[in-house]
């Protein structure tokens, strides 16, 4: 019988998608900080 491992699947995909979105946000924040430094 196939085991129910759906919760682990959701956790696995969540980790990857949160990581991708987190890195994207870090690029946005650093870009914003560079713009701020450039204006000074």
């Amino acid at each position: 019988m196939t085991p129910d491992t759906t919760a682990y699947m959701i956790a696995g995909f969540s980790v990857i998608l949160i990581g991708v979105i987190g890195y994207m946000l870090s690029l946005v924040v650093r870009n914003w900080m560079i713009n701020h430094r450039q204006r000074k």
Partner: protein
Amino acid sequence: MDSITKKPFPRALLVLDILAAVSLAVALWMALVYAPRELVMGDVQRVFYFHVASAWTGMLGYLLAVITSIAFLRTGKMNLDVASLAGIEIGLVFTALCVISGSIWARPIWNTWWTWDPRLTTAFIMELIYAAYLLLRRGVEDPAQRARLSAVYAIIGFITVPLTFLSIRIFRTIHPVIFGGEASVGSSNFVMSSQMLQAFLFSLFAFTLLFAAFYWHRLRLGLRQQQIEAIELQRRQDEEEE
């Protein structure tokens, strides 16, 4: 400010961003809906599509980093140092995602979150070595010396990449060997159906686009940072001379 800091947002990069986002959404649909459920492991096997794609993206970053590091040592162009850093930073993020998602996949299949299996161990060492690269950069103030040391370190550190990739073929391991491995009772190997293979290949494609978009953004950011630091350094030197 010079030309690069004034450059407008490239339209090609915007197109790449949109393509990457759409491809990622399609890859997610293929992984969750299109590909059939694996009978032995159940739904957790679907993590495989993004887990391997993350590893691929990470290794792409390290590969670009070693190429740009060699090019830097040959030419001395500081832009190549920025390119190397961009590759390693993205590589670190994606190999970390690969290791964590692999650990989640392992829990119901191997009955443990972590084991010192050759593949897991080499991947962990690779992650630590590249994390140390970032620490090394923070420790050296002179930009030229920092770039030279970082390039040498990136080239030596790259040894861990093929070692990690080949570890499942060189050593005895419980990690699945999907291509060329044998699916048997008690192993976590599995045979891919054609729909699974399509979902897998599309995930690789989507993550490659995502990598290209991230790399381009990180490169632009690094080049702007480099220019602003040079201007600030020049300003400080002028003030000291006065």
